[in-house]
């Protein structure tokens, strides 16, 4: 029978009350927390005790404040277990069934609980917001994918803030939340964007032998995107022709044939 285990579980501050429930259930099953990290947690087997856990967010504490902090909790029987993300602290107390559940609450009035929740940092969307700005400046399909993802992440952030506002100081049974799709969505967006940038074709036109004047060329465009006409120099010492730049945006149905006009001097 194994005596240690590591679980892969991403901590979500918006549902910290559900995480409390998970830790308490694991403790009842004989798994006691030894280390808590944002993406994984370590447990050891010990069936001799059942704990009730407490999760607290306090921001960055000085050495003096941290000492006072642990003393206040230790005075009520709370054992410090772990710290993660610089502002989250995990405590536990052995369960005594003769005591009421209120003994296992660290926040016993609403104003102090709300004050704690105001210190909880919450953000998913910032990583993608720059992509949204980039899309506005350069409307290409790859950046569009990032831009849409940024909007979805922002919506997820708002939902998480709403959930945090409704969270209670008591452990709450876990349930699935739509914003748990955020990580797979982010991975999909990055993969899709890289694919789009990779498969987006460059269209070439050989200008040798062309007469001066207005010319045109036809390209079959496979993906809606923002295309720009670029000039690549001839090899050797041949004089470079002048080409007025032309840009074509194809947001109509695809694949389609677009005719691009340019002036060749």
């Amino acid at each position, binding site marked *: 029978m194994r005596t240690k285990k590591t679980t892969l579980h991403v901590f979500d501050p918006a549902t910290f009350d559900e995480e409390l429930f998970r830790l308490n259930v694991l403790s009842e099953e004989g798994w006691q927390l030894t280390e808590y990290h944002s993406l994984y947690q370590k447990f050891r087997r010990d069936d001799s005790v059942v704990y009730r856990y407490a999760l607290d967010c*306090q921001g960055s504490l000085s050495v003096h404040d941290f000492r006072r902090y642990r003393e206040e*909790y230790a*005075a009520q029987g709370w054992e410090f277990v772990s710290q993660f993300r610089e502002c989250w602290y995990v405590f536990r107390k052995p369960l005594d069934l003769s005591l009421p559940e209120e003994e296992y609450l660290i926040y016993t009035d609403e104003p*102090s609980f709300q004050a704690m929740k105001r210190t909880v940092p919450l953000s998913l969307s910032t990583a993608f917001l720059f992509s949204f700005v980039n899309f506005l400046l350069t409307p290409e399909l790859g950046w569009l994918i990032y831009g849409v993802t940024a909007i979805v992440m922002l919506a997820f952030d708002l939902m998480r803030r709403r959930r945090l506002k409704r969270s209670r100081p008591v452990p709450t049974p876990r349930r699935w939340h739509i914003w748990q799709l955020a990580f797979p969505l982010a991975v999909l967006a990055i993969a899709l964007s890289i694919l789009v940038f990779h498969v987006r074709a460059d269209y070439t036109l050989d200008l040798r032998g062309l007469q001066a004047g207005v010319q045109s060329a036809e390209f079959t465009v496979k993906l809606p995107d923002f295309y720009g006409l670029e000039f690549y120099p001839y090899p050797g010492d041949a004089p470079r022709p002048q080409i007025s730049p032309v840009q074509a945006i194809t947001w109509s149905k695809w694949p389609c044939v677009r005719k691009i006009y340019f002036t060749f001097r």
Partner: protein
Amino acid sequence: MSDRQEPLTESYFYILLCLYDEPRHGYAVMQRAAALSGGKVRIGSGTMYGATGNMMRKGWIEECPGDGGFTRRREYRLTDAGRAILLDEIERLRQLSRAAELVMEGDAT
């Protein structure tokens, strides 16, 4: 009367009240608050830590070394400002209580 606008929360009131007569450490404050309220008021560790930190920043209480040598616990004592805040709150609650009694006895005009 000091210049304070918002009423104290129950936890803040009991913490200040428990420090009125002598300095106490956090756990002693929690125990005395429970005793004074007949077991109705329980101040959790998080509430206690947040409240004492806030009150120290406002200057209502201050830390002082406790008795007991190496095993001494950190104690808190009421400052003059904290004492004034507490007395204001007690007067406010007395006024509320008097108003309630008048209404209950049917003598309100």
